[in-house]
């Protein structure tokens, strides 16, 4: 085996990073033979899986997406069609519907889904007993496979007056709802299911952050006469600011790419009332077989998300630092 055996008299470079690293500032002419003798091949062998796999299943598809958005292909003949894929996407009346629904999904998930884990985490952190039990309970729905959770909730959202959730509403004296059959309720109903299925993971992340807040801050606030809620408002939430800002952005980004929940719950119905951009991409590509149009819409969505993230990060930069 060809591998580097540094002579014992030569000390390893300070903070040495491995057998191939040479001392900085010393240039040497490298011949392929010397490279092989120094074990370059073995190193490359370790690098090959990651390079090949990322090249085939990540980098190449990214490049190909960009190319395909200006192409039209039937897998035998591929022709360049310029912006026409984008034009056809923007001309589709469904696009406005899908974007508007996606925005509604995002808004509902911010209103319902974002505050829940913050509240739950703060209360769990204050529990004197059963903290582990409480966090396990919160995390339990996260373990349920998303498709199973959606199908379970679809059964709970049975629109008949004897349906499970309608029965609960009946006990509270609220008239039964059509849930997923009603285009106005379907989106918040799906968001409730999504919140149920995912609030636990955010709760665990917030709990970890809460444990790192220095208790001196609470002592100081208490000495200044802040009440318990005042301490939550003036100490806890500002201290969680960094993670809250990131989680907020991540949540928006993931809801913009929403597919599984509305797809399994309603198939995008009723009357396209829960059609999302991702479902539209799916329909373009895998129902209509129009891959150029699908990648064009994918790219538009990605660019929109990129701009959104950049604006968000720029706008909150000062806030997250000070």
């Amino acid at each position, binding site marked *: 085996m060809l591998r580097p055996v*540094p002579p014992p008299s030569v000390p390893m470079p300070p903070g040495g990073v491995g057998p191939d690293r040479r001392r900085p500032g010393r240039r040497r002419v490298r011949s392929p033979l010397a490279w092989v003798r120094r074990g370059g091949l073995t190193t490359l062998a370790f690098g090959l899986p990651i390079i090949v796999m990322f090249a085939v*299943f990540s980098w*190449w598809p990214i490049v190909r997406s960009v190319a395909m958005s200006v192409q039209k292909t039937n897998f035998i003949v591929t022709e360049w069609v310029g912006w026409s894929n984008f034009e056809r996407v923007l001309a589709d009346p469904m696009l406005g519907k899908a974007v508007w629904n996606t925005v509604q999904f995002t808004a509902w998930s911010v209103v319902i889904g974002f505050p829940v884990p913050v509240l739950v985490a703060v209360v769990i952190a204050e529990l004197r007993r*059963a903290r582990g039990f409480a966090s396990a309970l919160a995390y339990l729905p996260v373990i349920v496979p998303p498709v199973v959770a959606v199908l379970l909730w679809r059964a709970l959202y049975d629109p*008949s007056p004897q349906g499970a959730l309608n*029965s609960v509403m009946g006990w509270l004296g609220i008239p039964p709802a059509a849930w997923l059959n009603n285009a106005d309720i379907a989106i918040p109903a799906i968001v409730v299911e999504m919140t149920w299925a995912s609030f636990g993971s955010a709760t665990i992340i917030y709990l970890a952050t809460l444990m790192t807040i220095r208790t001196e801050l609470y002592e100081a606030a208490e000495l200044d006469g802040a009440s318990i809620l005042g301490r939550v408002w003036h100490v806890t939430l500002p201290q969680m600011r960094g*993670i809250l800002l990131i989680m907020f952005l991540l949540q928006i980004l993931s809801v913009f790419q929403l597919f599984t929940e509305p797809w399994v719950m309603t198939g995008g119905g009723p009357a396209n009332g829960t059609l999302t951009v991702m479902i539209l991409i799916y329909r373009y590509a895998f129902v209509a077989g129009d891959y150029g149009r699908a990648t064009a819409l994918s790219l538009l969505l990605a660019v929109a998300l990129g701009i959104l993230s950049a604006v968000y990060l720029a706008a909150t930069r000062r806030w997250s630092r000070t």
Partner: protein
Amino acid sequence: MSAGPGAALRAVVNALRARRARAAVEAAGDRSIVSVMDRSSAGTRATLRVVGGVCLGGLFVVAIGPLAWLFKAATSRTPETLKEPFALWPSGLHWEYFGEAFSKVNFGQYLANTLWVCLGNWFFCMLVTTTGAYFLAILRPRYAKVVEAAVLATLFIPGVVTLVALYLTVIDVPFIGVNLLNSFWAVWLPAAVSAFNVLLVQRAFAALPRDLLDAAWVDGASKLRVFWSIVLPMSKPILGVVSLLTVVNGYKDFLWPMLVLPKPSMQPMSVALPRLAETTDQAVYMAALFVALAIPVGLFLVFRKQFISAAGAQGAVKE
């Protein structure tokens, strides 16, 4: 050195003092938003107890409620559930639907497919992630910088961009020209490509003690040997986290396996279940759902700590 009884007594007293001090520090460390002083007021104590109780009770109902209802629906006749969804077993417990889920809708096959998907995902993810992280964090040749940048850049590309192109790549793999449709390779290989996992493992490898690795190089250990006998065994915790995340994702994944495994007999549970919804008796269907959920929940109850710390590790990277 005199070690008389006086010295021994002093040692005991010191030890006791130290213990009391430690206990006081721990008690102080236990404070959080609510202080010891707050708890001395009866009104505050009562409020705290109510808030805590409501939170615990609410979590219990929210987390367990739907799962308990599913169990009830899986063990009751379909018309009973449709008519009175909360009536507790008017005609007794019916365990037979669990059996029918396996005998009538072939649910065992779908579960086996899911297991196979998870195993393959785990194997290829481990292979690519550990060798890649070793390459990027420890061997680190000159061109590693370029590879690292290209790998980490994919973290910022939303998955939606590549979905369609990845599908087209998988049905006609470059260079070898194989169509992986209806083959588990189509699920396994893309699942192994996770910049997030590479990042996690690479960080852990970079934090390993350098002296130890340098000593191994000086002793003439081969790269493979250092990888297998030092780096991997010393990184067990992070490898556990990555394994767990990979298996859980394999179990949860829906859209991708639905696209590349259209053949019903190859579909994992999460792809097959929505398809079965229309054609299966509801009670049998609910039983299948319950089994699909009971397996990961059971694993969660056993490995609770690992699950929670893996969730925390994800958060740490996000920050």
